[in-house]
Structures are given as structure tokens and as C-alpha cells.
């Protein structure tokens, strides 16, 4: 079964992105194909230069970067969402595959379950 988790929200202001990761980790125990896609302001979760300590929270990118250790390595970001926010791939943690909008559509179409955060 293919499960896709989409994160559209920035870190720290809401817990949605962090809850998405909890869901990804819980789902990873069931040995299905899991993908994680960052769109809209969700792209900010992937920034290399961020520090949650400034607001007393865990830095958002840390757990994402650790996902391959849990066999979750299909981590995607929206290329257009990145560009629209004046960011480049160099600003993101390694291991993120950027997708154009048509590729995002194709990814979503293949899924059995899509959860949005």
C-alpha cells in the first residue's frame, strides 16, 4: 500500500508538521511504501539554517534528516514552492528530491492514502 503524507505548514507556529512526522514513523512500522511531501510553507520545515531553541522547540529539520534511519527515504519538496519563497535546493537538508507540479500530481495519483498536515 502507498501512503503519502503532505506537509503544507511551516514549523514552530503550529504542531502539524511535527505530528506529520509522528504519523510517518508510526506508519513506517507497517512496512508499506511511505512518501513525505513538503509543499507551500511546509518547505520551511526542510531548511538547513533553522534553530528551534530560539523558541524552546525541537529543531524541525533534525527528525526529518533522521528518517532514512527508519527506512523512510522518499522525501520530496515542491520545486515551485521553493522557488516562490526565494529559496534554493542548497538551503535545504540533503536527501530531499524536488518535484515539479506535474510530478507531484503523478505522485498523488499513485497513492492509496493521502494525509495532509
Amino acid at each position: 500500500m502507498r501512503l503519502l503524507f503532505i506537509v503544507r505548514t511551516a514549523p514552530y507556529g503550529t504542531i502539524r508538521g511535527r505530528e506529520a512526522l509522528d504519523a510517518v514513523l508510526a506508519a513506517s512500522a507497517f512496512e508499506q511504501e511511505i512518501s513525505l511531501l513538503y509543499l507551500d510553507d511546509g518547505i520551511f520545515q526542510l531548511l538547513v539554517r533553522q534553530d528551534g531553541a530560539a523558541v524552546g522547540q525541537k529543531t524541525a529539520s533534525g527528525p526529518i534528516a533522521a528518517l532514512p534511519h527508519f527506512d523512510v527515504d522518499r522525501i520530496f519538496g515542491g520545486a515551485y514552492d521553493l522557488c516562490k519563497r526565494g529559496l534554493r535546493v542548497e538551503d535545504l537538508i540533503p536527501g530531499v528530491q524536488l518535484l515539479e507540479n506535474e510530478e507531484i500530481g503523478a505522485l498523488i495519483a499513485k497513492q492509496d492514502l493521502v494525509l495532509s498536515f
Partner: protein
Amino acid sequence: MAGARQVIFSLVVQAAPPVHQGAETAYRFARAALASGHRVRRVFFYADGVHAGNALLMPWQDAIDISSRWRLLADREGIDLVVCIGTAARRGLIDETEAKRNDKSAFNLGAGFALSGLGQLVGAALESDRLITFGC
């Protein structure tokens, strides 16, 4: 509906009643699906959706009591109402077991709802023909 195949649905509710309509839309969808001869296996209340299981909700007089509506429908039709235990705890929604385990003075999970893990959502997806989400 002669000749139409019965579809097994499971639903995911992610938005909090009464602030968002998602829990109510999901309820109306469930009733419509059942009336059309389909089955609703499980409803998984996740993230803000867990509030549908709050026994202490006090809606406006002219609004429906979504928590009781879900409980009654589930009871009549044999639908599983599952509230995600982790996201519920973070939002202060717990049952008696969790209250005792965590030294909390009260609990508020409504009758008819059960706390469980994300595995129930994955299980629902595996066992249903369609999984529909509400309130994201």
C-alpha cells in the same frame, strides 16, 4: 441501486468540531453512504479531529451534537470510532485508563469512542475499498 457494487468506506476526520465542519460533513457522508447500501467500517479521528470524541462538548441549541450523533450511528451500524491516542493526549482528550496512568484528575473521552494508535488507520486503509478524509 440494482447492480451497483457495495463499497466499504473508512473515514478520517482531521478538523475539530464545532470550529470546523469536517466532523459533521463526515457524519452526513457516512449516513448517505449507508443509505445507498454501502458500508462504513471505521472512522479514525486524527489531529484536531479527536475533539469529536469529547464528552464535554456543549453545542449551540440550534446546532447538532456531533459527538452523540456519531456514537448513535456507530452503535446502530456497527462502525468503529477510533480516536488517535497520541494526538488526543496532546489535546487533553483522554479516557479513564490514560487518566489513571498519567495522574490526571479527570477524563473526557465520550462513550462509543476508543483510543488507539495509527495502526488502526493503516488497518482501515488495508481493509476498505476507499478511505475518505475530511477537514484538512
